[in-house]
């Protein structure tokens, strides 16, 4: 479609080129430099969608992020919901359609990249309008590290939408020079298309840079589409301007009704005439600029309707010279039209009373109720706001450390004042940082400001339409009206936060940019209290919507959380392992052979370890090197058993408790030297136990000369398990005497393999004869291969975590965190043998003497054998006891405990389980019941050690 509403000249668009795009299935043409909104307006299209609740036509009502009307769904180049036509830059091939307040996420994965950058500066300036540029120049000239971010495609802020002059030249020439000067400072980061959307503690600001959105399909794939800047600034200068505020009247939501300043921006920034016949309704002087500029551009301005009794004598004179009719002491009471405004209903207005009106034909109704400073970032940083009676707006009400507000955001609305104020706050920030603000800091000369006639604060025009405020829209996105606020107040609500939630005003896409202050004003009016007493709702980040994809950045998919793999990982993959996540580790769960399911594979792997030899990659086991003259003292204080008596060359199993006496971890300890131990923890407990040891060493016993460090990744660990393990180890390490006499259970020996240091330890987590092989991960694969080769003749079988679990459970070895839950003592686990009687104290000991710890009905770890020899009890199942007559007790049925581990056993040829059961050890031999899928399964309570209770196998 042709651009019949394009001004003959002007605007920052490239008229030498055209851009074709599609909206609601119709092809349009715009120019580079257009937004989707400006291109649609140039084609005469105002309506974007219909409203979410009432289905009323809605159009473009503002020129930037404050627009409550122009929500669109992008279809091409990539589906994206809930963008504003006013902030989408036009590019070739763009396809979009209007949205009634709800969009649709893409159904295909987003292949674009998103990333994040941290940046630290002395001064962060948000907003590249006149005040922001003045502040940035002042800071840059003083040699400070500066970041200047601005949400539009180019710097200039309000200057882009006006005709201001500086130094007797168009103000944008100064903007160009200022940007060039900033680019010459090496410590200045200047980002356009970048919205500071959140300000937090200690000078932390998040900003979203839209890097390639404006390029459409031409966006290079290697450049991230959007980037989150994590900015940390010593001083923040907020120069975010102001949003124009509408006045509420009946049927104020029709397409063609627009903020006055927005129309001026569409004309000057984009070269667009938003209509042919305009009525301007205002309460202040600023809208006269829109009336006069549109008139000069060829729009017929039917009338300026000024609610002030006298209007503005000076501006009225200007209008009359231009032949524009001014109606002071009048208001717009309503409109006509359906898909586009056709008439403004204008009536005299005096002392709050509306007289008899008449209709003025127009296709454009411009509205200005004053200006709301954009105080969002100040307020997010917990700055208090104060209500300014004269402006009818909320302004920063206090000084914040490290954050200052300038320009229109601080209520300074004239150009000369903005430049001077920008420089002032920048100098103050520099002084606070003891940076000398001296240096060249000439700023251009702006025309002497003209003192405007005082504005009238008018929130709403009394509804004379008979609709009682039900078509007087406060929040267009939520279809919320004056009648809704009246209903909330009538229901007894007083707090503005409650009224927001009752009416949903301010909860939509725009977060109340145009509706928030109106709601405060109208509520105060209805309650008959001052606006200051009503206040505003809390400003929360983000200032404008941010896609989750951008917040996630690169932390998604495989990069969401680190994946830790051992040096054997590729071998495991090639061997067909099925992996499971253990914390961040990828561990082989089992190695199925063709046609095997998990059950079959695990039974085979278990049988191999019990009858021949198996091998496990146990490298994820936590390992902590504890060194120092007092290493043994520290371990004695933290373990329940004695570690100082452990001999160099030996290994001891140990249990650690919290001060409450509950088990927090277990594992084996190797004494490497008088002053050095290797502490082994569970895979999941590695980091936690290192923290625990360091906490006690630093906070309670700083006199101990001991240091701890993680060596988990410095050692691969391969348990070689089973009756033939001695043959395998003996074959691979011929220098080591592997006989039981020379190398007994719970001993370790160092050796070498082709010059590579290897440590062997006789530790068993299966009850079988077993050797753990420790080697640097650099040689892990080679040593693993040697073990496999040597074990080939014995049918050596790699096994995974599932088999490891079955083997340990058959022996009653608990997994801390699976068979325990933070309420289980060593005594509950039947580990009195691991509690030293000799030590005067250790962490947890005193709690063992508490009465609750002596209770014979504490839950204790026992074995369970399903009587049917068939059912694998689901882990987590509850355990109940039947009455003597075989009936369940009446509800609530007392729970005796729960199943903590449950597997099928090759060795026992039946399923078995471990469980925590009240008074469990006194129930051994009893039959209790476990509900499984609605059936009560009888199970026999046994001791926790079901395989080789005598321990006859560990020496082979």
């Amino acid at each position, binding site marked *: 479609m042709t651009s019949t509403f394009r001004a003959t000249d002007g605007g920052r668009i490239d008229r030498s080129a055209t851009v074709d795009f599609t909206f609601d299935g119709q092809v349009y043409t715009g120019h580079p430099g257009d937004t989707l909104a400006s291109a649609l307006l140039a084609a005469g299209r105002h309506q974007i969608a219909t409203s979410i609740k009432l289905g009323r036509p809605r159009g473009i009502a503002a020129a930037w992020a404050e627009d409550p009307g122009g929500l669109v769904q992008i279809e091409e180049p990539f589906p994206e919901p809930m963008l504003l036509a006013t902030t989408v830059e036009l590019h070739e091939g763009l396809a979009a359609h209007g949205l009634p307040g709800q969009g649709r996420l893409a159904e295909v994965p987003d292949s674009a990249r998103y990333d994040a950058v941290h940046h630290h500066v002395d001064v962060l300036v948000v907003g590249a309008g006149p005040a922001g540029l003045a502040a940035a120049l002042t800071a840059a000239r003083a040699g400070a590290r500066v970041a200047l971010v601005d949400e539009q495609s180019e710097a200039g802020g309000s200057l882009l939408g006006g005709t201001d002059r500086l130094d007797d030249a168009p103000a944008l020439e100064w903007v160009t020079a200022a940007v060039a000067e900033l680019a010459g400072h090496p410590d200045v980061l200047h980002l356009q298309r970048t919205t500071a959307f959140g300000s937090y503690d200690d000078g*932390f600001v998040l900003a979203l840079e839209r890097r390639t959105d404006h390029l459409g399909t031409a966006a290079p794939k290697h450049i991230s589409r959007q980037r989150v800047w994590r900015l*940390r600034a010593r001083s923040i200068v907020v120069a975010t301007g102001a949003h124009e505020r509408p006045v509420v009247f009946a049927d104020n939501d029709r397409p063609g009704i627009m903020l006055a300043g927005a129309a001026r921006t569409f004309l000057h920034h984009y070269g667009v005439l938003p209509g042919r016949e305009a009525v301007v309704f205002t309460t202040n002087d600023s809208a006269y600029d829109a009336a006069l500029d549109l008139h000069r551009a060829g729009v017929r301005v039917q009338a300026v309707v000024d609610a002030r009794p006298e209007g503005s004598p000076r501006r009225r004179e200007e209008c009359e010279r231009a032949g524009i009719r001014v109606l002071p002491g009048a208001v717009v009471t309503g409109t006509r039209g359906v898909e586009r405004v056709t008439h403004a209903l204008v009536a005299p207005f005096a002392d709050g009373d509306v007289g008899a009106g008449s209709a003025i034909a127009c296709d454009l109704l411009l509205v200005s109720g004053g200006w709301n400073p954009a105080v969002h970032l100040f307020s997010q940083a917990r700055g208090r706001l104060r209500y300014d009676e004269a402006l009818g707006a909320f302004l920063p009400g206090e000084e914040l450390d490290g954050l200052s507000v300038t320009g229109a955001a601080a209520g300074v609305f004239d150009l000369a004042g903005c430049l001077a104020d920008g420089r002032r706050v920048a100098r103050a920030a520099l002084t606070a940082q003891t940076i000398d603000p001296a240096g060249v800091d000439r700023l251009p000369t702006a025309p002497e400001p003209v003192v405007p006639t005082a504005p009238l604060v008018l929130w709403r025009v009394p509804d004379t339409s008979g609709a009682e405020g039900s078509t007087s829209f406060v929040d267009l996105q939520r279809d919320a009206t004056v009648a809704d606020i009246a209903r909330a107040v009538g229901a007894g609500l007083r707090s503005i936060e409650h009224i927001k939630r009752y009416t949903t005003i301010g909860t939509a896409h725009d977060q109340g940019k145009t509706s928030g202050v109106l709601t405060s004003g109208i509520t105060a009016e209805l309650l008959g209290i001052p606006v200051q007493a009503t206040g505003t709702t809390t400003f929360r980040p983000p200032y404008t919507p941010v896609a989750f994809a951008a917040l996630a950045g690169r932390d998604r998919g495989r990069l969401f959380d680190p994946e830790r793999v051992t040096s054997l990982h590729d071998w495991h993959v090639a061997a067909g392992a099925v992996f499971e996540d253990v914390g961040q580790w990828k561990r082989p769960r089992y190695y199925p052979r063709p046609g095997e399911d998990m059950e079959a594979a695990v039974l085979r792997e278990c049988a191999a370890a019990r009858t021949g030899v198996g091998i496990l990659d146990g490298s994820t086991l936590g390992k902590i090197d504890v060194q120092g003259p007092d290493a043994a003292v520290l371990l004695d204080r933290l373990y329940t058993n004695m570690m100082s008596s452990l001999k160099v060359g030996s290994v001891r199993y140990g249990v650690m408790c919290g001060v409450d006496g509950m088990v927090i971890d277990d594992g084996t300890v190797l004494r490497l030297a008088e002053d050095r131990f290797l502490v082994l923890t569970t895979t999941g407990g590695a980091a936690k136990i290192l*923290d625990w040891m*360091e906490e006690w060493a630093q906070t309670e016993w*700083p006199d101990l000369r001991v240091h701890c460090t993680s060596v988990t990744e410095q050692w691969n660990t391969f348990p070689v398990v089973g009756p033939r393990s001695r043959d395998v180890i003996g074959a691979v390490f011929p220098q080591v005497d592997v006989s039981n006499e020379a190398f007994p259970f719970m001993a370790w020996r160092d050796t070498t393999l082709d010059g590579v240091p290897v440590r062997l330890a006789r530790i068993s987590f299966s009850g079988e004869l077993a050797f753990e092989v420790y080697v640097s991960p650099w040689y892990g694969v080679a040593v693993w291969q040697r073990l496999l080769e040597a074990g080939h003749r014995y049918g050596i079988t790699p096994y995974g975590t599932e088999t490891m679990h079955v083997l340990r459970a058959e022996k009653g070895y608990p997994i801390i965190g699976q068979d325990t839950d933070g309420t289980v003592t060593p005594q509950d686990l039947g580990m009195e043998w691991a509690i030293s009687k000799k030590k005067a104290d250790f962490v947890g000991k005193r709690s063992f003497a508490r009465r609750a710890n002596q209770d014979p009905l504490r839950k204790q770890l026992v074995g369970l054998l399903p009587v049917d020899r068939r059912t694998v009890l689901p882990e987590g199942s509850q355990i109940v006891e039947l009455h003597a007559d075989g009936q369940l007790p009446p509800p609530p049925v007392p729970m005796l405990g729960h199943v903590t581990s449950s597997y099928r056993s090759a060795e026992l040829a039946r399923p078995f389980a471990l469980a925590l059961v009240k008074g469990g050890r006194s129930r051994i031999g009893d039959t209790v019941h476990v509900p499984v899928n609605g059936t009560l399964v009888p199970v026999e309570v046994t001791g926790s050690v079901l395989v080789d209770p005598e321990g006859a196998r560990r020496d082979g």
Partner: protein
Amino acid sequence: MQLIECPWCGPREEVEFHYGGQAHVPYPDNPAEVSDEEWAHYVFFRDNTKGRFAERWNHTAGCRRWFNAIRDTATYRFERVYRLDGPKPVTP
């Protein structure tokens, strides 16, 4: 995101730190001699102050050192940080 001043490293992002609860709750000299009630107070009971509170913090993702801080639990402001071997500062 706050900056927290580590006494050894200087100001660092709060995500580098872990909270360690109330400070100046020493492990009893001889646990075997305290009553069950006294022991329970040591294990389970902590103050729940609104306002200035002496706390333990650990620079977990940095130097891994523990230190103490006086922090206002209502405003989150860190007013003082001090090393474990220092006395609890007297605050006005």
